[in-house]
């Protein structure tokens, strides 16, 4: 089947319109946090996963639930606790009573991970063993349990949350697992006007009903379309330069990186930046990404992939500052 230029144009317009409707729908419930919403939608379209970090009460869980409702996808929430076991997530085999001839049989009972959108709430409270149970699901889109590998429903999106304040009794995510997240999204505290709106909406009797504006197949086709958006070679080179500049031994690395960074971003970081830049340009009604798009998505794509050295940790250096300096200093041409 050949696609004509007119059809492509129509598809692009439809993509932009659908994305706008999705964002609008989520914004009916979530006040402010426009960048967070945009980042979460980017994760959904990129087929990546998001790690939301923010203090309690900022609406992280509500955002994910709303997104699931607006996209008409299955939603499961897992509250991670220290005693949560891997089987509680991926599922387990139970003894089920069969018909008379066969007797009792082991039957696989799928865990909450078999949903389109999984909210892993306070993921850093679970033990590394349980955290790693999500690794295969996030990377491969499959789950191996009871000796059998099972595919997860598509689209599949893990949105994890963690609280940056409470470090007592937590298990920080290992670098390998952090690298599986497309974005690490900072959920900022709302401003005065936003807080006013939140109070207005949540302390009255009004309840917002969310209408589904997308569905699973539509999301999958949108994913295909955004991946076909062309990117100029100079932009790809810029992405590469930015990524390399997060490594302390690179020639373009700025002072902060040279002094305080142990390891820079992995190639997944570059993939995340470029893919997210494509999605961002679509979200803003443009046909191709620009350097501005890369600069906008770079902090979310890199902040969990850049690892500070001991001096950086001791000095309390913010990784965001290092990335901002990288974006300031790396030449565009």
């Amino acid at each position, binding site marked *: 089947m050949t*696609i004509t230029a007119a059809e*492509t*144009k129509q598809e692009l317009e439809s993509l932009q319109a659908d994305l706008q409707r999705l964002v609008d729908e989520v914004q009916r419930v979530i006040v402010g946090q426009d960048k967070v919403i945009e980042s979460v939608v980017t994760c959904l379209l990129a087929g990546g996963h998001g790690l939301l970090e923010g203090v309690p009460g900022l609406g992280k869980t509500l955002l994910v639930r709303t997104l699931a409702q607006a996209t008409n996808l299955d939603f499961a929430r897992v509250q991670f606790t220290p005693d949560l076991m891997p089987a509680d997530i991926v599922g387990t085999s139970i003894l089920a009573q069969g018909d008379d001839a066969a007797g009792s049989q082991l039957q696989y009972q799928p865990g909450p991970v078999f949903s389109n959108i999984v909210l892993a709430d306070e993921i850093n409270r679970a033990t590394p063993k349980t955290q790693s149970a999500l690794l295969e699901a996030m990377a491969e889109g499959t789950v191996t349990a009871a000796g059998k590998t099972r595919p997860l429903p598509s689209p599949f999106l893990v949105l994890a949350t963690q609280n940056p304040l409470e470090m007592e009794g937590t298990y920080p995510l290992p670098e390998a697992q952090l690298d599986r997240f497309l974005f690490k999204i900072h959920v900022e505290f709302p401003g005065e006007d936003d807080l006013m709106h939140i109070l207005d909406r949540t302390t009255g009797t009004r309840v917002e009903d969310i209408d589904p504006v997308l569905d699973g197949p539509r999301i999958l086709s949108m994913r295909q379309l955004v991946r*076909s958006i*062309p990117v*100029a070679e100079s932009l790809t080179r810029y992405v590469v330069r930015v990524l390399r500049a997060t490594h302390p031994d690179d020639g373009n690395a700025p002072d902060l990186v040279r002094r305080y960074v142990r390891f820079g971003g992995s190639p997944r970081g570059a993939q995340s930046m470029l893919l997210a830049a494509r999605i961002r*340009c679509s979200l803003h009604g443009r*046909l191709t990404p620009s350097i*501005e798009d890369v600069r906008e998505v770079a902090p979310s794509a890199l902040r969990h992939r850049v690892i500070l050295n001991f001096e950086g940790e001791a000095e309390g250096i913010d990784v965001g500052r290092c990335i901002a300096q990288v974006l300031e200093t790396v030449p565009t*041409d």
Partner: protein
Amino acid sequence: MKSIERVIAAVVRRRRLADAAWGLSRLALPIGMVTWALCNLAIRYCMAGREVLWLVALPVPLVLTWALARRHPRRQIARLVDAHYGTHDLLGSALELSQGGDTKGRAADIVALLVADASARATTIDPRPVVQLHVAKPRWWDGLALGALVASAAAPLPYQTYMCETEPAVAFEDPVPIVIMADPGDGGRSPVDMPEAGPLRDNLRDLAKGEDGDLAARLAEQMLEVLDQLERGELDRAAALEELQRLEQELAEAESEYEASIEEDPGTLADGLREMAEAFEQQELTEDVAAALSKQEGDDAEKALNEAGEAAEQNGGEDEKQLQKALDEAERRLEDAAERANKTAKELDEEERRLRREEKKKPKDPKEQEEQERRLQKQKERVEQLRRQHEREQAAQDKLEQLRRDAKKAGQRGGQNAQQKRESLQKLSRGMKEAADAARKSRRMSQARDAMQEAKSVVRRAGNQGEGAQRRKQQFRRFSQAAKGEKGQGKDGKGKDGKDGKGEQGITSDPGGKGGKKGQPTLMIEGDLGDGEPNMMMEGDGDGQPGEGEGEGEGEGEGQGEGEGQGQGQGQDPGDGGQPSQGDGIGQGSADPIGDPTGLDTNVKNVRVKAREGKGATRAEVIRDASQQGFASEAYRRVFQDYRGFAQSALDSEALPAAQRRRVKRYYQLIMPRE
């Protein structure tokens, strides 16, 4: 695409214009003015033709060529346009992707849409605001270039330019011959500037304060006299060197005589005395003994110990306990010192073995025999030298052992009456005096030798005129200022009228005249604090006391601080009085950091220091700060003398090659405190 190309070409043209405007105003103009100034000078002074003025215009074509030839990548220009109009890299991406050509399917469709979009947008773009044309604002170097041009135009014409060929030549009369009259009084010698002789003079003055009949003191005085004569121009360098060589010869004879006469190794005795001083220093009652011993002042030490004994006998109680403890400690330390005194025994054994081995060897031919005899002779001399040294060490060891026994006897509890104790103590103090005198004599001899070397070196360098010498002099002054913590002249005790007055704790005591009024002496206190031994230096403003000078304004006075601290200070005070007096002072204080109250009217400043956690200052920072704030030159002088004393005793007692001896001596000459 054409519309995009058109926009880009227009922007490139504007860019070239902007480059040319910038280059002409920023580069060509100042360079042209400087070139013009140089051409002016060349025409006036180097007989250059007026054609060189064409060079003034040279920067213009160079700048224009650069502006025309400079590359402007189209992608960059497109990005510039996008950035100016906020089109999110629309033109740039369209330009780049349209030239890529390897996009297929849906991506190719999107590129086509993009190019169409960009072309439509390009038709609405005005390229002029993208690149602003402006003339660079004048900078300081433009002013400099203009100044150079004006100065070159105003430069006076040389004599030759007045010599017009048409004018008649001017006939000059023969000038009156100038006769230089030699001064018959000094044989044509002139005073010699010797800025580096200051520290040497100080050392020599210190050395000259010895007892009557002390050779080192006499030589020091004579060396000072030679330096003064050289400086006044009464001697030339050759004569001064000759005089110094004569003195050196005298010193060498005295040294060899002394060498033959000494029975006990002075280095070992000095070591023992140092140990005793440290032992006595621990008790308040015997602090004076410790001070005298550390300076190797035998008479003072004897007197102070006898006084301490009398005080202990009269007061009993705590004083007696302190004396007892001091003597016990001294005995223990002397025992240790005596044990390690025999340094050369092992070396002597080794050399004797080597000599015996050498003697057993049988030469094969006469040449080898001759060589062996030479070696044997050298070896025997060496063994003889070591044996002498060994004997002296043993004698010194015996002396220390005797002192130890005396100390033990004097410090014994019970078993003897007061009279016996007194006698024991007197015996100990006499022995101590003898040892101190012996060590002191050796040290003074060595100081005289060092001063002699330094004097010769100073005389050799004296009067070296010229730019290099001037530079060295300036540098020397700068170092001196830095070492004293001065930022400029006229501070920290450098008055205009006064000269080298000396006083205690910054007080210039001046009994004869009316004296100065207020000065700003610097008070520096060193003292023990707590368990450790930190040196604490307090610096404060103070008022100098009115004083009176001696003689013609070169005053020397000593006063006594009212606290526990004793100090030395340098003050300046004119002899005829009425002028401000200023002084520096260094003193030793008590363990209390504030110190006991003194009579000084000082403005004490309490400073609260905020501690900051961290790695602390680096070595480089410490050195830099020290060089800016100044070194404690007086403390360094004392430390230096101690160290040189150690080195000297090592040189005296150990067999070292001559080259190494010279090197050690040279090293100490180089690090000798200056001013």
